[in-house]
């Protein structure tokens, strides 16, 4: 047999998009499982804490408590999806399913695998965030048209959080490390990143922990947007900080994928 001499057809799909498609095809089969955690739970949070606790708390920083925690729950939903979908799913596709090994045998490269995964998460987060915003409108929780930019902030947060967690998941060999991640990173981040109360309430010793968390920066930006205010730090600083996590995370994730798939 002679080698094929015809020229290759124009590539109709980029390998990154092909990876995204795989995730979407899987999601089409498994989406029911995510409805509760992605849509129902945030709304329950809003109702129980926003209205229930809010009844006792009254107003925070000049607005009703429900309106105050809307952006917090919004960003923390993005945060939860980003972390949750970048742990077992990544390790499993290396260790048990070996889907990344299957991709490795094709023109798909480590960078395509990472980008495809992150695009998929941005899709998941955007759907969840928009659905949440629609519900919130009926509770009068949005106070400014700037609320429209919150999906963008949540999209950036997704990369800032999912990329480093993906790098971590691609590096470890056993899923017991995830419980450390959840216990010492995810839960404290959610509790102390200005989701439920202003970080000014924290003692000065703990406050830097909030500042270090990408979640706090996204919460600040979302809160400024939904309440139509100026965030506590300059916008470029918040965005820059999130970008720094995103870029570093991407670099680490691609490197981790490359190392794991080499040899």
């Amino acid at each position, binding site marked *: *047999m*002679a*080698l*094929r*001499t015809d020229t*290759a057809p124009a*590539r*109709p*799909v*980029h*390998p990154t998009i*092909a*990876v995204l*498609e*795989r995730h979407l*095809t*899987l999601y089409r*089969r*498994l989406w029911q499982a995510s409805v509760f955690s992605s849509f129902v739970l945030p709304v329950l949070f809003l109702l129980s804490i926003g209205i229930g606790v809010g009844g006792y708390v009254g107003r925070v920083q000049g607005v009703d408590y429900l309106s105050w925690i809307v952006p917090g729950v919004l960003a923390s939903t993005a945060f939860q999806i980003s972390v949750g979908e970048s742990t077992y799913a990544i390790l499993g596709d290396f260790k048990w*399913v*070996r*889907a990344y*090994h*299957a*991709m*490795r*045998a*094709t*023109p*798909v*490269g480590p960078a395509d695998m990472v980008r495809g995964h992150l695009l998929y998460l941005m899709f998941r987060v955007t759907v969840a965030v928009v659905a949440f915003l629609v519900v919130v409108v009926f509770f009068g929780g949005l106070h400014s048209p700037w609320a429209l930019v919150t999906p963008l902030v949540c999209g950036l947060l997704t990369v800032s959080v999912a990329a480093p967690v993906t790098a971590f998941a691609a590096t470890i060999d056993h899923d017991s490390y995830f419980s450390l991640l959840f216990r010492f990173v995810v839960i404290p981040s959610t509790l102390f990143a200005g989701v439920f109360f202003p970080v000014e309430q924290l003692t000065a010793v703990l406050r830097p922990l909030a500042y270090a968390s990408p979640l706090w920066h996204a919460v600040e930006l979302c809160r400024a947007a939904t309440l139509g205010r100026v965030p506590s730090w300059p916008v470029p600083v918040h965005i820059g900080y999130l970008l720094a996590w995103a870029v570093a995370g991407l670099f680490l994730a691609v490197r981790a994928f490359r190392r794991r*798939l*080499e*040899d």
Partner: protein
Amino acid sequence: MAGQPLIFARGLVKRFGEFTAVDGIDLEVAPGEAFGFLGPNGAGKSSTMRMIGCVSTPTAGELRILGMDAVRDGPKIRARLGVCPQLDNLDPDLTVRENLVTYARYFGLSRAESRRRADELLEFVQLGDRANGKVEPLSGGMKRRLTIARAMVNDPDLVLLDEPTTGLDPQARHLLWERLFRLKQRGTTLVLTTHYMDEAEQLCDRLVVMDGGRIVAEGSPRSLIETYSTAEVVELRFPGMPDAGAQHAAALEGVGKRVDPLPDRVLVYVDDGDAALAEIHRRGLVPSSVLVRRSTLEDVFLHLTGRTLVD
């Protein structure tokens, strides 16, 4: 481009730290050939396959696949390879058909073309009726066939099969061989590793025997048998074995070209089995059972790589 080898390796080396998996091998595989790597576990077959598949970087040496450099042109080469790995890595949560379509998209095929290829290949590997079923309930043989179909999805110039039938029952193996033979007839270049001698004899035009990271023999199954074994083998069992084995082996010296005493029987490598039997009777030896058979690749393999168990 006829005549240019699809695989060309010179002094190919793969080291993992201190351990040398592949220790300087030379290879050439021509278009249309079915080429096999034979060897015990740890001989370096899979490491070599992974370098050919451009997923593992050679430590040293030259490796050209489809006329391109294996290190520099990895993605371009992989676009034209079909790989059937040793461990199944199908997507268990996707359907049989979705597995193929998804994989076709990795190669940049259009959606319509991906679907067309998937259906065509499912027929080829006789899984058409399972197209919309899940992967998980498929038998081992069906999963392998699906993996082979997946390896064909980009119409590859070269198909790499790492131990394609390991762990399958005889029926599944024979069906798989038959499908691979059809591929070979269509002119697809096949490169496979195996430690089944019958598989190598069935499928390979040419093969190399690897041991300890080196190539210890090369040729067609027939020529390897001619070179490293004899036409026939006489298998003798004697009363009182294994204790009396050495003594019987000594008594058989000179009957054939080589005597191989095993714990349960003595093998005598001869050109003419009947003549050898006559000689054995003339010497007054009375075996409790006698079997005269043709030499196989297994005899070559055990002669070249030894009988010591490698784990």
